[in-house]
């Protein structure tokens, strides 16, 4: 699978590291109760279809970015700003 790094261009997926579901809203630092942090950290949308996720180009420019990919086909729509 090719991942489009916003800085280095398309690279093999082996140069990246997956950072999980990016559609979850992280509570701002110092806010959110136990339930909010549990739902953020422990539950997943896990759709069979379009999915927004975090990736890091860990063997390249080491930048994190958000990507939209369809989990049913692995077809990548592109980087999400």
């Amino acid at each position: 699978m090719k991942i489009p790094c916003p800085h280095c261009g398309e690279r093999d997926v082996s140069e990246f590291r997956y950072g999980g579901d990016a559609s979850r809203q992280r509570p701002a630092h110092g806010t959110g109760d136990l339930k909010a942090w549990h739902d953020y950290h422990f539950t997943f949308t896990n759709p069979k279809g379009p999915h927004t996720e975090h990736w890091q180009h860990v063997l390249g420019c080491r930048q994190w970015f958000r990507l939209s990919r369809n989990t049913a086909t692995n077809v990548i729509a592109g980087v999400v700003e």
Partner: protein
Amino acid sequence: MAKGYSVFSLLRHALKPDSPWPMAWEKPTPRSSYDVVIIGGGGHGLATAYYLAKNHGITNVAVLERNYIGSGNVGRNTTLIRSNYVIDGNTQFFEHSMKLWEGLSHELNYNCMVSQRGQIVLAVSPVQLDVFARRGNIMRLNGIDAELLDRGEVQKLLPYLDYSKDARFPIWGAIHQARAGTVRHDAVAWGYARAASQLGVHIIENCEVTGMVIDNGRITGVDTTQGRINAGKVGIAVAGHTSEVARMAGLRLPVESHILQAFVTEAVKPIVHHVVSWGAELFYLSQSDKGGLVFGGHIDGFNTYTQRGQLFKIQDVMQCAVSLMPFMSRMRLLRHWGGIQDMTPDGSPFICRTPVRDLYLNGGWCYQGFKATPASGWTFAHTIANDNEHDLNRCYSLDRFEKGRELDDYGIGNWTYKQ
């Protein structure tokens, strides 16, 4: 106990070639309602239906499978069974599964080829040998067989490993469970299906659940591609698609679906007589009775439902195989495929009630779905029949993360993609 198969039945049919064998399991059209509907015709769903009928006398049961039975992970895994779990709760559950495995061919009157050839998990450092020793000590303290092997003993049992000074990670020793081994995976699905069918359970293939009928917090039936089916109780047992099905009931779960690849080589004369697992990387291999070497490694590491994996991970698993067993470089791969793993943050499953009354969840199986099949069916049947968890699966509750009761057996931390 199911009946009908033996060497005599084989001789009878050999002498009368035109007398047909009976259907292995019936293929009825679905009734409009059942006491219990199980969603998912894999190993866990079929086992649950069997134990509902056998242990609890509930036979008005339907197993709804959207494809052919055994089309999911039960037909895709690397067939390993073991009970070497260290966390309180996991230890007892997987040992119960192991005990059920030991009698299963008899129970189902279906030869599942339960081959207790032993599993050897290799440690590549003194620290890792300590971690395995703790696991072995807990096993012995719970009546489970385990023994520590030093490097010399490992070399006698597994002469084909790389003991040279060139090995990147030297072998320090291993933990050995003699009762662990392999089981012919397809036979488990067909065996449970046949036995459940003989007890009156309806197995409905090509019947996909498309929606759930829930009124004021209680489930009363499911919509399917073969029409609506009402149900007193509904059990979800769909492994990789757990989130998709649970979503129909408005549930958002601690589950993320990942791809785990598996590999098989051409068949050669017997050379590997155990299940061999490695400590340097997650890697496991055994030789099937047909002679093919069946092996696998880590998940690919990102959320996907595609049932096919990435090349970099294929190459990584091959590198593990050749580095641990140099003879593997000449073995020729015939086929590689993928299964969808329902990964959870702590690597342990859910077998429990849900916030929706009469809807029960069985999922989150990560790497160990196959080896858990009998105990999962057994405890899920108990949970459904009694609307209450059994002691063996009380710890596998949905709210364990909110309460801080994770069951992180490998001590990797709460990441789905690193379990």
